[in-house]
């Protein structure tokens, strides 16, 4: 058991013995360290003003990721490197290329969101060469600006690669000596449980699955935290006091995706960012859905296990996973069990998870030949928005054009992510025609009784859900029809 938190703040090793288990990185920076360049805009991970860059080991390589400091707990930085906007200027006071590009392109007006944008751009700059327009939009989707209309910031995102005539040459950049920093972080890595706390409250971060399993048996009331993109808000918005936090992010075994041949076994700690590419290769439209979950900062923290375990009726991965026929592996102590994902969600706020049990992995079967998968996320805004309705479909037609298999799952339509059993039954075995689809649309009305709230009215939800079935039909029957407004439009007919 290690009782000291260790991470790098820039190049400086920080070791902290006493820390509030839910102290946020933002509060630590602003209140304890007086590093006030990082701003609080919303304290819920939605505006990006607090964006910082965290370097972490992914295997043996160092990866830099933009994250929201406002909902990330300080103790989760164990073994990482934290970079803030104050780190960017050179020792001679020269602006970093990212900063210079923002100045040259007039990317700031009031300037309050600017440090966050600079840090999101820094993460992009460190990770990618010459991103295209779509990629830049995605990298900036989690940063809100109320002044500029974004255009000059996007210009800066292009221009930062040109600053100083370096033309993309990263030599001389202070953050690119990754091998050296990776070695430093490796030196911090151990297999011990991290246990830090203050005032009788503990932050426990196991390094292995058996440690995690045992800690959860030993601490039955503990709150499991993975990406903290939800739990972070319990603290910042509802001021909940969590006595014991068990953090899963250090468990490397949970952050792996294993190819089992017929399926991917996705560890519960795998983030959306980690999984996006592997999943997109199997299910392009699932990849597109992941592109639109939260924004970069959220995808860099949020995990598959967390999205499932918290049981939200509006989580975006469960409908897609259910439509794909995914199963869930739960573990309690030494015991594991598997169940179809849809059976995990019992009712609103209630999942089939026993005390001390945790989500270990989700098993995503690979698509069978001839199978078509579509996912649609409907919200007021395309990026960084919670779905009003999220629908996912897996369709297989037989040689005669009849529905041989169909799985339909929706989020936002009931108290849990839920399959459309009635519609599936109506469609199964029928010829895949507009008439059939209309029967399915009618049946959907019996499958769900959605609620009205600020995201959408019940009637909009019901109408859109039915219309998405029609969209699926058009996309699978009329290759010429244009149906997509965002993302790769080829996906409609993939």
């Amino acid at each position: 058991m290690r009782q000291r938190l260790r991470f790098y703040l820039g190049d400086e090793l920080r070791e902290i013995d006493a820390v509030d288990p839910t102290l946020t990185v933002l509060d630590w920076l602003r209140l304890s360290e007086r590093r006030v360049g990082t701003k609080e805009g919303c304290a819920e991970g939605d505006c990006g003003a607090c964006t910082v860059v965290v370097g972490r080991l992914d295997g043996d390589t160092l990866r830099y990721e933009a994250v929201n400091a406002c909902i990330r707990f300080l103790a989760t930085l164990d073994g990482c490197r934290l970079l803030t906007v104050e780190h960017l200027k050179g020792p001679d006071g020269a602006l970093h290329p990212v900063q210079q590009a923002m100045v040259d392109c007039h990317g700031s007006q009031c300037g309050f969101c600017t440090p966050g944008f600079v840090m999101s751009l820094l993460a992009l700059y460190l990770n990618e060469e010459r991103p295209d327009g779509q990629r830049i939009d995605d990298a900036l989707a989690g940063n809100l600006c109320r002044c500029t209309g974004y255009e000059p910031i996007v210009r800066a995102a292009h221009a930062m690669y040109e600053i100083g005539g370096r033309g993309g040459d990263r030599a001389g950049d202070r953050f690119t000596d990754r091998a050296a920093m990776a070695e430093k972080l490796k030196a911090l890595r151990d297999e011990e449980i991290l246990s830090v706390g203050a005032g009788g409250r503990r932050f426990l971060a196991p390094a292995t699955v058996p440690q995690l399993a045992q800690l959860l048996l030993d601490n039955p009331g503990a709150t499991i935290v993975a990406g903290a993109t939800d739990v972070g808000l319990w603290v910042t918005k509802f001021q909940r006091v969590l006595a014991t936090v068990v953090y899963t992010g250090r468990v490397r075994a949970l952050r792996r995706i294993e190819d089992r041949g017929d399926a991917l076994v996705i560890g519960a700690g795998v983030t959306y960012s980690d999984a996006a590419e592997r999943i997109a290769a199997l299910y392009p439209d699932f990849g597109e859905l992941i592109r639109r979950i939260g924004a970069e900062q959220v995808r860099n923290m949020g995990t598959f296990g967390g999205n499932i375990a918290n049981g939200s009726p509006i989580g975006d991965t469960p409908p897609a996973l259910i439509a794909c026929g995914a199963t869930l592996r739960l573990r309690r102590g030494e015991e594991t069990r598997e169940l179809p994902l849809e059976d995990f969600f019992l009712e609103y706020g209630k999942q089939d998870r026993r005390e001390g049990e945790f989500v270990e992995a989700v098993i995503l079967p690979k698509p069978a030949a001839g199978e078509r998968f579509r996912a649609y996320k409907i919200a007021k805004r395309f990026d960084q928005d919670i779905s009003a309705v999220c629908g996912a479909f897996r369709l297989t037609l037989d040689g005669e054009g009849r529905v041989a298999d169909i799985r339909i799952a929706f989020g936002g339509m009931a108290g849990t992510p839920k399959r459309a059993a009635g519609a599936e039954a109506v469609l199964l075995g029928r010829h895949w025609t507009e008439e059939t689809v209309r029967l399915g649309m009618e049946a959907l009305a019996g499958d769900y009784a959605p609620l009205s709230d600020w995201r959408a009215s019940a009637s909009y939800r019901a109408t859109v859900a039915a219309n998405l079935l029609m969209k699926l039909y058009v996309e699978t029957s009329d290759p010429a029809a244009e149906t997509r407004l965002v993302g790769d439009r080829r996906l409609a007919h993939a």
Partner: protein
Amino acid sequence: MAPDITTPIAPAATPDRIQGAVHDSRRHESAHKHVSGEAVYVDDIAEPAGLLHVYLGLSSRAHARIRAIDLSPVRHAPGVVAVFTADDVPGVNDIGCMGKHDEPLFASSLVEHVGQPIFAVAAETRDEARRAARLAVIEYEDLPAVLTIAAARDGERALVTPPMTLRVGDADAALTAAPHRVEGRLAIGGQEHFYLESQIAMAVPGEDGEVLIHVSTQHPTEVQHIVAHVLDLPSAAVTVEVRRMGGGFGGKETQSNLFAACTALVAGRTGRAAKLRPDRDDDFQITGKRHDFEIDYRVGFDDSGLIEGVDMLFAARAGYAADLSGPVTDRALFHADNGYFYPAARLQSLPLKTNTVSNTAFRGFGGPQGMVAAERVIDEIAYALGKDPLEIRKRNFYGADPETDGRSLTPYHQTVTDNILPELVAQLEESSGYWRRREEVRAFNAGSRILRKGLALTPVKFGISFTASHYNQAGALVHVYTDGSIQLNHGGIEMGQGLYTKVAQVVAEEFQVDIATIRPTATNTGKVPNTSATAASSGSDLNGKAAQAAARTIKERLVAFAAENWGVAPDAVRFERNRVWVGDRDMSFADLVRAAYMARVQLSATGFYKTPKIHWDRAAGRGTPFYYFAYGAACAEVTVDTLTGEYVVDRVDILHDCGRSLNPVIDKGQIEGGFVQGMGWLTMEELWWDGQGRLRTHAPSTYKIPACSDRPRIFNVALLENAPNREDTIFRSKAVGEPPFMLGMSVFHALSDAVASLARHRLCPRLDAPATPERVLACIAALRERDASSQP
């Protein structure tokens, strides 16, 4: 493809010119501090030792009597030092800006909206104050709550402030006589400012009751007055300082009074510095927003679409108190014509009292709502006649020549003398390829099953000046130091719009020194008193002129000194490119200044400016409220998904009139940003209250402002060239803060156009705002139904 960023927007400084002269594209004076995190906002100021953190206890009811209140759990919570209620206010428990005494700092016996402050708690840390504020036990007796415009209009029609009527001609007679008539109703939602820096104030107590307040406000003088009023102090004991704000947009014109007064109260009573920064959710609930409106309109027109008469009633949700609802609803009427001539009109406002937060200023200040109504009327005419809306727009523009065409009188009896819309729109029509793209959109729609495109070109005419004429004044204070450096202070607030940069350019130009010589300092009521709000797009116009006057005063003294000292005629003293020529002798600016100082010449001066020509008689509904008009136009193309109501903005072309721009790149930033904000208002930004009057969209997780990818995919923005202001404004520039906001209407009307294509453009879709995907889909369904029932 990376855009070519090397293309200059305007000529950079050359050896012939100083750095940062007027009309140069010059970066924001704080840009290098913004990007490094070194720009200091109120929450970043090093806190004085012993500072207390303040948090507000809020009403959970929309309308109720407070029967009992138990604050002892708050007082006994960890870290709590003191709790304050209405009983603790030494002066007047009122923070309203209009002197109506309808807006208490703390509610005492009656609460009138959810989120209304009832008490403040001061604690050692912010977290402790915030936790303690939740512990109050308040017993309410609920009263009937009026939450919506409909409920207010159908009920007692209580008003927060007297309504206004504008009349020109005989609207009823014109409507009766017109060959065609249409009437309808348009609902337009409100808008949260969502300044990225939330409200904040920090008060530092001094001696003899004095207090220094650092606050994020657009109106330091009003904060000063309110604090003095609440604390029973003379204004001279209160100093307010603002270096910059992290966005305002009107949301910090009056709404910062509360936070400043509260911290000043705590500082005054405890003798310790005090800071109050609400959480974002509380900021949303406590502070007012853009007014939502329901507008009933009737229009009469001839076969060609020419308007003959208009009758409109503007019902606005004012909230529980007056705040700025009077001038806001007035400005809605002033802009209910947008760029169109109404031979006869009756325009009435109805600022309705509701049990919701008191709505306030927001970029455009009611003007946008008036203009959307004007554009709806145009759409109605176009659909009724089967013509392209652009044709109807052009047909109804004000005349270009008030002397000859008799189409220049506004409903408020000001004559439009500077109308450039016909030329401006013609230019944009051409550069955007409107008619070619109209055909392309038609062709696309004919062949598309699910996606539909829409196109619209909408104009903007916006009146510049505060309609409260006395606000159109400004002061400045310029100090020249003996090393030749210059300190510049004025009454305007830097909120990102580049005001400090522009005014510094003015002073640099006057002294002919590089802009780096000029150091703008924080706006401070102790340096320049009796300032007007930085609002109504007036910042550069007023403060630029005031600073110019101050600079000219000093310059005149320097000229007189130099002429006498070196024995030349005053006109032989010339300031050029960091040098001063005195006859054929030249010296640095600093050398001249030093010599002047040794000769005991005063090197500091104030400057003052008041806008000429304006006057306004509200009771009569007549006058010249605006010094001039700013113009612009935007052409938007959108694609709508008819299965979901979602949409994207494919392309926007803007041509905007900044007169002779003081700083083209900063103005372009105002145009791009204003456009996107205006588009957000009319599309995705939705305020949603539940049946108990609780705002449920109270943070960015639920209230969606445009994100990066929502901006137009192709975004062409140009400033109108060769168009100096016809009035003698600062270097013939025009105000640019608010006017571009209304360019966002083009997206709203393009969405409407896309929907209209589903019924062959023969029915007006009557889309309400905000046009969320849900509202677009509902509009499509309603239109299809109307279309089906209108078929034989």
